[in-house]
């Protein structure tokens, strides 16, 4: 009996140890985030005033602002969304609803999944050669947005495919039974039901596009612009590039300005991700 007791105590001790180990791991990752955020807030908060959002970058830390970078990022993201979303949803619909199940379709699907894993700089090089030089769009918002659209296409396609696949066939069959055509079924039943899932993918893709700097630097984002872009053919700067430019300045004050800009970017990203989570939760509820 004593032997079993000892054995069970040993097992329990192991259990406690494992429990603690996992708790510490979880805490550690949160701790790192908290330290990072605390440091950013401590350094960046003094610079987060109205002028910071209204000013252009300056050689004086106190007068520096992120207006052109914000406007540039918004331009890039909106245009990327306009280009990528219709193509991505159309591709997902084709692959899930129309494409015959054969080797060629599989080949396309595997390729799309692979594209999602390609380093972003490769898209940058492609964008520079094709959009900037060959098609002659120059170092413009259009070139940047087209490159970003290619970058996020696979992400949206894959998540849209999953959302469409998750819709029970009974819904489709119900629609057909009422005499609806395939297109009517897709437009009135499949798309609306899959929408939350598709939106989640779109938002995650957009937040990826918001944080990317390498491909945009390659395509020709500038480090300083003196006028706000007013059209898709204008030159631009985006938030991550502005952060990079400030970070490499010699003066210590600019480290704090950098922290302020990083805070803005993090808040934007967290907001986007939060929206994605809320939408996903809503999506789960619909089908349970």
């Amino acid at each position: 009996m004593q032997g079993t007791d000892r054995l069970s105590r040993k097992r329990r001790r192991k259990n406690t140890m494992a429990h603690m180990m996992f708790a510490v791991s979880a805490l550690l990752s949160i701790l790192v985030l908290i330290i990072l955020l605390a440091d950013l807030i401590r350094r960046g908060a003094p610079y987060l005033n109205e002028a910071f959002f209204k000013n252009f970058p300056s050689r004086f830390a106190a007068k520096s602002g992120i207006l052109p970078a914000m406007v540039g990022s918004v331009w890039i993201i909106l245009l990327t969304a306009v280009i990528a979303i219709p193509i991505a949803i159309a591709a997902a619909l084709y692959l899930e609803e129309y494409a015959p199940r054969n080797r060629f379709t599989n080949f396309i699907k595997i390729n799309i999944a692979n594209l999602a894993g390609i380093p972003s700089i490769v898209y940058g090089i492609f964008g520079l050669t094709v959009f900037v030089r060959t098609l002659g769009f120059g170092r413009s918002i259009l070139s940047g947005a087209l490159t970003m659209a290619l970058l996020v296409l696979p992400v949206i396609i894959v998540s849209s495919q999953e959302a469409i696949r998750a819709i029970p066939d009974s819904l489709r069959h119900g629609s057909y039974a009422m005499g609806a055509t395939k297109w009517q079924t897709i437009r009135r039943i499949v798309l609306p039901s899959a929408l939350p899932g598709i939106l989640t993918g779109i938002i995650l893709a957009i937040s990826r596009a918001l944080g990317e700097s390498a491909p945009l630097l390659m395509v020709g984002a500038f480090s300083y612009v003196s006028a706000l872009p007013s059209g898709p053919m204008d030159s631009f700067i985006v938030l991550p590039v502005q952060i990079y430019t400030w970070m490499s300045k010699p003066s210590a004050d600019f480290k704090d300005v950098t922290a302020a800009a990083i805070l803005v970017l993090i808040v934007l990203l967290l907001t986007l991700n939060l929206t994605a989570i809320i939408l996903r939760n809503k999506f789960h509820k619909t089908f349970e």
Partner: protein
Amino acid sequence: MAHTVLSRRLMTLAVLAITLFTLFFAAAGAMAAPASLSGDIIIDGSSTVFPITEAVAEEFRMTHPDVNITIGISGTGGGFKKFLIGETDINDASRPIKDSEAEAAQAAGIEYVEIMIAYDGLSVLVNHDNDFVDYLTMEELNAIWKADSTVRTWKDVRPEWPDEVISLYGAGTDSGTFDYFTEEVNGESGSVRTDFTPSEDDNVLVLGIAGDKNALGFFGFSYYVENTDKLKVVKVDSGNGPVEPTFETIKDGTYSPLSRPLFLYVTKDALAREQVKAFVTYYLTEGKALIPQVGYVELEDALYEAELAKLN
């Protein structure tokens, strides 16, 4: 149905609002000073020259808000690649154009003007706690940095110095700073020992040297100016006694040979455009006062006159 009527009304309102806004801004634009310049100026090139060009662009914008100046940081060499296929108007350069680049310009039919704008003093630095290194001769620097260097410890440089291993930090191989330092110290651009810590980001070098008791490194003067409390600058002796890099010694040429000129390269086609000529003129007149503010050294006034003359 009520829903569609409402949205139709909203649409009409929106269209009206947009039209009004456009009219308002168009009118405001038309009323603004008519003599003001407009158009684009596309600049790319050296990250060393960027802070100066950025400061000048910032001030130029106050008087000419309609001129859109864009500045990129592709490095001197990367910038020239764009400059030589006509993608940019001005290239910021931390070294003179190379023969191969000049040939490429000729082949592409691009004519340009070289304009000297400022000096930078390549500074040699050690850790703040280093109390034995006061100055280094060019020969000693060469012995430390040359490609087949056998120097490992401070003692290998001078027998009275401690027998501790030197850790070397330097500008990354893609920078004009690296090209210039190796050219002056080792006699050949790009020739250097390979066991040093390189970084394109000078702030990384500052951190590295500040945290390493036996560090020795080099980078641009402006990064030393901002970190005088963390680093100790080493005087350099090129035969006329040890000289410390300061605004004065770099300007009057006594900090030699490690002080280097910085340039703008402007295409002649671009100079024919009013706003580009106005910008470069501003750079060499009012703009030069901004140069010390961002940690670089002004040229003598007579030199600016000479550079201005090149514009015509």
